[in-house]
């Protein structure tokens, strides 16, 4: 399994990381090196095996559905690059 340059650009877009044209070939090589490394797994017999969903056997803990937190707007906005009137401000999202 290997990726071509179009795939690299597609993956970068999915990951929301800008890549320049100059960077694409090197990234392609790196990704293909890792894919080559993991290739041997395709030969392993996993028939009838469940994927691991819980690392240690554990039930999801439950609690009462009551509000126990909140009203901490200043703390939430404290690290914002751009905040105004209690909102995070970003470029227009919807046309």
């Amino acid at each position, binding site marked *: 399994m290997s990726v071509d340059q179009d795939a690299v650009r597609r993956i970068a*877009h*999915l*990951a*929301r990381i*800008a890549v320049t044209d100059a960077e694409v070939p090197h990234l392609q090589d790196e990704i293909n090196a890792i*894919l080559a490394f993991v290739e041997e797994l395709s030969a392993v017999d996993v028939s009838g095996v469940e994927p691991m969903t819980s*690392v240690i056997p554990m039930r999801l803990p439950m609690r009462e559905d009551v509000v126990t937190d909140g009203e901490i707007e200043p703390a939430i906005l404290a690290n914002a690059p751009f905040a105004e009137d209690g909102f995070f401000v*970003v*470029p227009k999202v919807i046309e």
Partner: protein
Amino acid sequence: MEPDLTDLTSLTLAEGRDALRSRRVSSVELTEAHLRAMERAKGLNAYVATTPERALEMARSSDARLATGAAGPLEGLPIGVKDLYATKGVHTQACSHILDGFKPPYESTVTEHLWRDGAVMLGKLNMDEFAMGSSNETSCYGPVASPWLPPNWSVEKARAALAGDKRGLLTPGGSSGGSAAAVAARLCMAATASDTGGSIRQPAAFTGIAGIKPTYGRCSRYGMVAFASSLDQAGPLARTVRDCAIMLRSMAGADRKDSTCADAAVPDYEAAVGASVKGLTIGIPREYRLEGMNAEIEALWRRGADWLSAAGAKIVDVSLPNTRHALPAYYIVAPAEASSNLARYDGVRYGLRESGADIVELYEKTRAKGFGAEVRRRLMIGTYVLSAGYYDAYYVRAQKIRTLIKRDFEAVFADGVDAILTPATPSAAFGIGEKGSADPVEMYLNDVFTVTVNMAGLPGLVAPAGLSAEGLPLGLQVIGRPFDEETLFTLGAAIEEARGPMDLPQAWWA
């Protein structure tokens, strides 16, 4: 041997605790000694942020409590904190530019436990960016120099390299490189660290100190910058196994804010240090004997088995057939989970923001600028293996292989084996700049003995077991049953005992 109270940073955590409790030394004295040592060792680049005023304030409070006898288990002891733990109001960036300026308005549960128990915070420790690395070379703050000198280097040569780009000096391992270097160089009495694929255990082996990655769920992950949520676990690095036991007791425990944190009582781990290994059955897994294995490492492994046998343990051969699939499967699962966890770094709510004409451009430019090359590489692999058309072939398959890996261990434990003894690393520490530039996979091979443990969720401890022919530290790993860290502390202490005295390097850096 009596601890040398004229050289306060040479004390172990346990010795420091005893000296404080008996009032032979004050926390302020102990803290000041470490702050001075940190200042002299700036060149090592172990700390990325120091908190001297806060440390002295905490030390004074500790001294007041020690005077009234209201001392907590870690009262007055100066500790370093890996940069991925949220420390309220203090630099927390997981050594990434994408979190530039971030100061959390909350505290991680693990560090909250340390302060609750009276510890003193010296500062935040260097690490590979987002915990992705095995040498601390991916940090946005630059590499950490190990306090161990490269073989045959003069002090002059080392100091010159330290003042320059550090090339050729030894790495302390990673991702908890800053934590390991600080402990080994006596810049803190112990440090918090974390382990996703070996990031506590490999640096411990490389720097001649002890470290434990406890069972998944033993410690809370609340407030830890997440890398791979099903693999990450908090743990201590310290100069002795006993010190690690003391630290883990404070770090561990149930937490309602982390639903993967087990609601299990925390035993007195220190009590297990010095217990007898008589009657314990130790498994030696044949699949860990790699082809072309470093002869010194193999010899040390055999020596470790002989030590435990001489102390009364039974040594048996065991098989963990799916061992060789663990590393490739890890390099699917961990990047996949990372791609999900690191999606939150988008320039909107915290950290770096690059401007963009629209929201997507803002995301793409921020992330391109803020993430280093290794992080970008892993995020792209992770995104790929989770994408439509590839999810089953890669991620689901890797998760199935994970089940097989865990089953291998369960079968061995069910057969009566109490713990498994393996090497910790395929080699001693290597030089900064030596690995990984041509082939990313070269660096990944460092994790070959450690990732299986994270994949299976088991506890793993590394104890410093000796020196290579070139005088560099080598460690041995013991892997245990879920929540049986006590047996690992017992075995680790037995290894230390059998090994005999092993000195850490004296300061050449200033």
